[in-house]
């Protein structure tokens, strides 16, 4: 395959991944690594580097609109970035001496878990009667977000649990070059009990900094290849932007099911290939 053909095929694959990732809320990064390794036969380390770059691009591109609309909780995002940044550097450093087989198996598990999470029903919204947490008040993390009925205020709960989960999300992001958005949203939805739109947009806001933290390590290790990252980035970004536009009013239930099945299939193929000396 010539570089031109390879570039065009990877571009089309990345565009589709970005589009579906945005439509289903799973993010493009989680598909890019298995797509590059199991379909295009790319070494997983190059795939992680290219995915990481595309994750920064989609995060920054989408965050801009969400921040302007007022969904993103900037202070909460910046506070939790302490956890994800530290986690991401640890993850990236682990990735540089762990075997490719181990990386592949961990990625397979994370993919299956993401596929499972995307099938879970959204948690109900909470109205809490608990007194405000003094630490949360001190950090001024509580906020409001816009709805059709005006601004609704919300409280942040279980900050220590959320913070610990964010360290884990950072490690996985740094280890595998994905945004680990599903884990971040899980921490904010379930542990910190934030409204769904606040957790998804704040997660998206944090992903850029988290990915940048591990990108430095990957760049220094020579994992970020310009020829491969170029079609991935140029494909994922317009794909994700288009997906976000189509999302309004689209019925995504069926799509979610199909997408998570594809994800699971790719995860199995990748782990199988790796354990049988393939790729």
């Amino acid at each position: 395959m010539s570089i031109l053909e390879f570039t065009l095929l990877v571009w089309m694959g990345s565009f589709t991944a970005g589009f579906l990732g945005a439509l289903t809320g799973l993010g493009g990064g989680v598909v890019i690594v298995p797509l590059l390794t199991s379909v295009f036969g790319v070494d997983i380390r190059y795939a992680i580097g290219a995915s990481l770059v595309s994750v920064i691009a989609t995060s920054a591109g989408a965050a801009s609109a969400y921040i302007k609309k007022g969904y993103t909780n900037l202070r909460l995002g910046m506070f939790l970035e302490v956890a994800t940044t530290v986690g991401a550097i640890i993850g990236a450093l682990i990735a540089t001496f762990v075997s490719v087989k181990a990386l592949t198996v961990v990625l397979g598990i994370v993919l299956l878990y993401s596929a499972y999470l995307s099938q879970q029903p959204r948690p109900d919204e909470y109205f809490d009667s608990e007194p405000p947490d003094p630490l949360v008040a001190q950090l001024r993390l509580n906020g409001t977000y816009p709805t059709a009925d005006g601004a609704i205020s919300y409280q942040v709960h279980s900050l220590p649990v959320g913070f610990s989960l964010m360290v884990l999300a950072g490690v996985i992001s740094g280890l595998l070059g994905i945004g680990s958005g599903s884990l971040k949203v899980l921490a904010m939805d379930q542990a910190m009990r934030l409204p769904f739109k606040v957790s998804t947009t704040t997660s998206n806001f944090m992903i850029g900094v988290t990915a940048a933290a591990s990108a430095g390590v990957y760049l220094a290790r020579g994992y970020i290849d310009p020829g491969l990252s170029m079609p991935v980035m140029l494909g994922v970004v317009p794909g994700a932007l288009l997906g976000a536009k189509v999302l309004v009013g689209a019925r995504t239930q069926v799509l979610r099911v199909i997408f998570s099945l594809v994800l699971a299939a790719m995860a199995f193929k990748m782990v199988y290939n790796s354990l049988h000396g393939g790729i």
Partner: protein
Amino acid sequence: MYQFDSRSQWLSPVQSESNVVPFPLQQKAPDCDAGEISQDLEVAGESQVAEVSSDRQLQLTIANLLKYGVILATATVFIGAVLYLIRHGAEPADYHIFRGEPSMFCSPAGVMSAVLSGSRRAIIQLGLLILIATPVLRVIFSLITFLRQRDFTYVIVTSVVLSGLLYSLIGAYFRFQ
């Protein structure tokens, strides 16, 4: 994505437990205009006037910084891509075996000197570096804003994040060479 559908679902608990939601619901959809900020202020209290408007200012600046950072990075990568494909498009592609990038593509300084010496792949790599720098700039900008506001809790928070990023971008390079 999740839809905030039924309006009654939202309103009923708010009415029964008014202490839960300190901000009364506003009639119009919130936007970034001055009217909404002043409505917020009536509830939030005079002392927070400066903070609310400067937080809003920070939001807008960060949003624009991220937007233009991505546009600049994408444009650079695209230009590099066209030049690269014109010259190397017919060569065979091989990402099957990991070799690691040549050391000039592994650091900002190396990429800059490769761009100046006419490498087309280096132009793409420069675009990727601009992309990685965008969230870093966002953290630097937030740090300056919090310093100006004398919000020292967040000065510490953003400083920790920034040192992590700088360690990764600069420290890792020296460690691995």
